[in-house]
């Protein structure tokens, strides 16, 4: 009896020991992330509270918060992010519904092609836009020639709208992925039965398809919001006066003005905003389930 209990105890201890040894494997990656990511973040926070003389102070941060450039950048960032996300949701929904419910031969290929845009640099689209919508671009040149105008009529590119259009192009796939995954999981006979009961296409769309899409839209939308708040390349390439977002402001302060305390202060706030949106995104994913979101991450 004693030996059996002893053996049992030994094997439990052994398994626990293996467990501890097994969990030790997580430590090296943790150390690397801590050293290369957490440590720099901590230093950002420290720098944000360090003034020009190297002393700890709230002044740099308060200056930043009070400055007009910061307020403008914050408002721009949020406005552009919300507008882009809304545009992504609209475009992504339209295309996803068409691809999923009014399919044509080769629709899978087309969907994959759009999906590849995720792998391309974000400034590619912006560069292309200068050729299409720029002052000397296709549309302006064509309109000026056709309507005999002196000045280029289409000027929206060098404004927040240009950024929104570019971000819409680049981030719509992040809406389409979870949406099309959700639609593919949907029971097709629901749509057929709804039609047989008398539902015209628009009625079925509104009452059967859209409710099924909402969880995926929520997940994709919150991801889009996060990504557009963080976007830098597009804003840099548009380079329009007055269109400054938080990431661009950080770059300007740090690299062009060498004002590291201000840059770190802005970065701290930018990071806090991003982490908040990221938490929101993870909470939404947790609620609606991974299958519904076709999570990229």
């Amino acid at each position, binding site marked *: 009896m004693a030996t059996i209990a002893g053996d049992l105890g030994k094997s439990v201890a052994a398994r626990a020991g293996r467990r501890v040894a*097994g*969990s030790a*494997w*997580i430590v*090296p*990656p*943790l150390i*690397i*992330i801590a050293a*290369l*990511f957490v*440590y*720099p973040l901590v230093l*950002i926070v420290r720098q944000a509270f360090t003034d020009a003389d190297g002393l700890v102070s709230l002044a740099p941060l308060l200056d930043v918060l009070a400055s007009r450039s910061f307020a403008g950048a914050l408002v721009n960032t949020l406005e552009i992010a919300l507008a882009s996300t809304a545009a992504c949701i609209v475009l992504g929904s339209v295309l996803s519904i*068409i*691809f999923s*419910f*009014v399919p*044509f031969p080769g629709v899978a290929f*087309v969907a994959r092609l*759009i999906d590849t845009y995720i*792998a*391309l*640099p*974000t400034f*590619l689209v912006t*560069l*292309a*836009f*200068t*050729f*299409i919508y720029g002052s*000397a671009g296709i549309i302006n*040149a*064509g309109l000026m020639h056709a309507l005999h105008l002196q000045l280029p009529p289409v000027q929206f590119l060098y404004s927040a709208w240009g950024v929104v259009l570019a971000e*819409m*192009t680049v981030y*719509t796939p992040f809406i389409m992925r979870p949406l099309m995954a959700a639609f593919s999981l949907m029971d097709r006979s629901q*749509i057929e039965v709804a*039609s047989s009961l008398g539902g015209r*296409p628009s009625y*079925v*769309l509104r009452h059967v398809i859209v409710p099924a899409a909402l969880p995926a839209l929520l997940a994709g939308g919150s991801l889009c919001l*996060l990504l557009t708040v*963080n976007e*830098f*390349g597009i804003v*840099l*390439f548009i*380079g329009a006066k007055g269109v400054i977002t938080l*990431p661009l402001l*950080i770059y300007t302060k740090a*690299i062009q003005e060498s004002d590291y305390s201000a840059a*770190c202060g802005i*970065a701290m706030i*930018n990071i806090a905003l991003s*982490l908040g*949106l990221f938490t929101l995104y993870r909470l939404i994913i947790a609620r609606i389930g991974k299958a519904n979101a076709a*999570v990229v*991450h």
Partner: protein
Amino acid sequence: MLLWSTRSKAAVWTVAGVIGFAVYLLPMAVIIMASFAGQWNEALPSNFTLYHYTQSVQGDSASQLFASLVTGALASLFALVIGAWAALALRGVGRTWARLLTPVFFIPSAVPSVSVGLGLLVAFSQPPVLLNGTIAIVLIAHFVLISAFTFGNVSAGLERLSPDFEQVAESLGARPSYRLRHVTLPLMMPYLLAAFSLSFALSMGELGATVMVYPPGWVTMPVGIFSLTDRGDVFQGAALTMLLVLVTLFVLVAVSKVPTKAAAQR
């Protein structure tokens, strides 16, 4: 199954076609045209030439290509190793720890890239570790940004992997390290390759952190393209962008063609 008449279907397809063309095909087509253009004064370009492309494999542009490729390969490799390591190791910790630590590995992708660059700049421009002005800091920046994606891909793949394989291997007497090398990793190979591809593509296009930390001797293609377009050399910029896209796609396709002996059971 939503629309019933050929007429309404045709109308919808036309709308989709117009949108798809205007939003996704047109930019690609325009960049391609611009990369071959000598002049673009009217609505369409003229004076087609290969000059920009020949320029892009010489001098500055060539070294930028080299820098991007090396950074991409090294950062992706490192990110793959660490990301996969973390994903595999998390299976061995208790459930509460796993739930707490998983977000830690995802967070680097949530933070804006410029801030990551700024952090690295601030942290490694002072003792104890001085790295500013070196190539290493660029590599580290890329690594931090893409490690979350490799971690995510590998975690997703591990979730799909049936525990039967490893349990059977264990019952046959295989020790953990043997199982890892001969069962788990081969079955995970498709996911590992996909993770590498994605990381490589992201690294090739990375701008926000790179522009904060790059030393003058290590200019990556995105930074180079920005300089070109900033000073008005848009056609050259377009050509270099096309080169970036082609190289990225080439690596993606090449990696996808690597034969994997075992297709994981879904």
